């Protein structure tokens, strides 16, 4: 009803919402006795003020882009995949098994195989809830949540009992062979030792691939039809059960990208809890990015910056409580997601008057 020009819809409204979230943050910092200017400065400088800062921001953003894409692609089919966390975790198992047991292969072969392993394990872990929804009617939201817990339990068991080398006290696998490590941007001339790596490029390619698949193929068309209305999909003769299983597999494969970034790009071994909540951040990222790949990349960048800047903030401005970072993220989600349309009527009126 309140139609906005395209540029305002895609740029102005999100930026205003973000500013609103930051303004409220400043007020809250002030209320807790802190210095809002110092806090916001620390946040900005900490996330974008140096090569190191940018490097870490991009590193976090990479993982968030993968999970954001995972949630977004499922959402295009009307499926709310809350299980990206568990799928990313299982993706880590796929990456690790390939890296350790095919470690004798040269890097040129091993890298794609390990990436494929991560994608395949993530896909399989997501396809099971997909199958349960498609053939048994178990709701995907419930099953994917449960599969997060199953993934956590399974991985603890595997890592602690099977993958930890004998004699080691740390619950982590033995290190990956050199051939399985994804080159960092530092090795390619980026002036920082931050762990940002080629998985960033992979995430961008994945975004492009998702866009092509969803908006430029008949399969993607069918997916969007199903997402808009199952009744229309039935009329059009789309095999929805199949579609659900496949799109969930795709979603899980994308979530597996987290393991590529974290394990192959940074840690070079499998460790407990390496997904550290990226699966859930992905939901916010997809929400803010309006389930569109370009939006997901931008939102991932923002959340990456908040994560990195937040860490710096806690370090640089000690009188600001460290919870303030979580608070900022929450406010950003609140203003861009839940209250995303709050400014719309006013903005539409203003632009309508100005534009005539």
């Amino acid at each position, binding site marked *: 009803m309140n*139609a906005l020009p395209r540029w305002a819809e895609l740029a102005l409204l999100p930026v205003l919402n973000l500013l609103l979230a930051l303004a409220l943050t400043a007020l809250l910092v002030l209320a807790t006795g802190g210095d809002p200017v110092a806090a916001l400065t620390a946040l900005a400088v900490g996330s974008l003020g140096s090569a190191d800062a940018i490097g870490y921001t991009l590193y976090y953003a990479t993982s968030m882009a993968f999970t954001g894409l995972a949630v977004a692609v499922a959402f295009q089919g009307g499926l709310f995949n809350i299980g990206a966390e568990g799928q990313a975790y299982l993706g880590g198992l796929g990456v690790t098994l390939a890296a350790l047991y095919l470690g004798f292969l040269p890097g040129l072969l091993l890298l794609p195989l390990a990436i494929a392993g991560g994608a395949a394990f993530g896909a399989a872990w997501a396809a099971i809830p997909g199958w349960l929804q498609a053939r048994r009617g178990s709701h995907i939201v419930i099953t994917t949540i449960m599969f997060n817990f199953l993934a956590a339990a399974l991985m603890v068991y595997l890592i602690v009992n099977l993958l930890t080398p004998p004699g080691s006290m740390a619950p982590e696998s033995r290190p990956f062979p050199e051939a399985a490590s994804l080159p960092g941007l530092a090795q390619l001339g980026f002036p920082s030792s931050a762990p940002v790596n080629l998985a960033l490029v992979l995430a961008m390619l994945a975004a492009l691939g998702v866009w092509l698949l969803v*908006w430029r193929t*008949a399969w*993607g068309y069918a997916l969007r*039809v199903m997402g808009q*209305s199952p009744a*229309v999909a039935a*009329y*059009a*003769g789309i095999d929805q059960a199949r579609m659900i299983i496949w799109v969930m597999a795709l979603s899980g494969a994308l979530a597996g990208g987290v393991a590529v970034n974290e394990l192959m790009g940074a840690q070079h071994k499998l460790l407990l809890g390496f997904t550290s909540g990226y699966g859930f951040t992905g939901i916010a990222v997809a929400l803010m990015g309006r389930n569109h790949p370009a939006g997901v990349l931008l939102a991932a960048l923002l959340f990456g910056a908040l994560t990195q800047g937040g860490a710096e903030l806690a370090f640089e401005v000690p009188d600001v409580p460290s919870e303030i970072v979580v608070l900022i993220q929450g406010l950003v989600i609140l203003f861009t997601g839940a209250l995303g349309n709050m400014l719309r009527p006013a903005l539409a009126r203003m632009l309508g008057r100005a534009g005539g």
Partner: protein
Amino acid sequence: MPEAEEMAPPAIELRGIDKRFGAVHANRAVDLTVRHGSIHGIIGENGAGKSTLMAILHGFYQADAGSIRVNGQEVAIRDSRDAIRLGIEMVHQHFMLVDRFTVLENVMLGAEGGPLLARGAAKARAELARLGETFGLRVDPDARIEDLPVGAQQRVEILKALYRGAEVLILDEPTGVLTPQEADDLFRVLRALRAQGRTVLLITHKLREIMAITDSVSVMRAGQMVAHRETAATSVAELGELMIGRRLTAPAPRPPPKLRPVLLDARNLSVHDAAGVERVKGVDLALRGGEILGIAGVAGNGQGELLEALAGMRRPSGGEIRLGGRTVFPGRGFNPAALRRQRLGHVPEDRLRCGLLRDASAAETAILGHQDDPSWRRFGLLAPSAIAAHAARLMHDYDVRPADPALRSALFSGGNQQKLVLAREIDRDPEVLLVGQPTRGVDIGGIDAIHQRLLACRAAGKAVLLVSVELDEIMALADRILVMFDGRIMGELTSAEADEQHLGLLMAGVAQERVA
């Protein structure tokens, strides 16, 4: 206040209402005066702007310019709460009822009268009884909505409006879902409302209803108010002409069918619905190329399920279906996509629910079901320009207005949506065309265009199965008519034998022997 009554200002007075949606000028400087205590009809083709105008009056949209007066007072209606406060209530074409609630609970919705329901419920029950008495609106207050027939659901909508103190009641195409008998009941209620001094605004495209029930009538065309008439001083012919801007021509007599072999054949077909109820009970039918076979019946007697089964959307529980001589059921690959490949076209009964993509562009709707066609691929990928060009051609050929492939499907009027769906299905050159309620919610000009398309299919030797609850439509188009009642075929009539009386008895379940 008898003195006030005498010189009562108009219940509704609209002046210079203007509304644009992007490039679409839905209302241009519309004036409308509705007398207090009258039944006022608004007619116009689909897309003429009637629904927009009523949405403005009901606060769903706001006018870009113009003023609204209610009982002589200038008012601003910002949302439907404002409208309700002013006593303006709307009964929508698609009912706004909670299916699993009882009548009483639905009526109380939004007017519960406090945190505890008991007191409000007692008050509502008494008030319902009173309203039922006054206006002849009798409904069991404890019946669940989902158990009520459509006519009764509509009465609940009206009761709900009256319960909230409606002085002005807007009804949007109220008879579209009713049997002729239910429509008569509705008209009795409307007359009772008028007798009690309420004002009724009736939006319709059915000229006969206008003549039967209204006191005065306003005609809209292309966003403008083109005429106001006292109903007693006008005629169906004049209104029809005003509405479509030209003289209506009588339908040309149909040439006799040039029959081809049987293209669609169903034997002993049974269909159960999701709840396990048998909705189609052993139906036999054979459809030949070059003919239109009509299926008549009161809505809900299994025609919808039969149509969906023949289209592959619903798996029959027994029987056999042959398409073009090949058995498609029972068998593997019985689904809409496979049947489409075997040259079956399907215009669904409920286009809004399953025939088009409401939130996607007209171009995307135009390839629904045919997304795998290579002709809109470039380098293996869907080419939006090719899809838009295809949609633009369909919209041009079938006179879909506005002819804008980028416009959201939901923003077209019902008639134009239907033309788009029909264009998509007929353009594939199907051998068998299944058509459900092709003109539901479509205006006169649109009905005529759609009927011509179906007759053209017949002339081209296609087999057309027409399911419709509109007897006029069945009689105007079908060569043979099957009448369904309670899931069974009650009898078959040729177009020469068919008249409303014969059909009506069969539709009521009276067996053929006793009719003949």
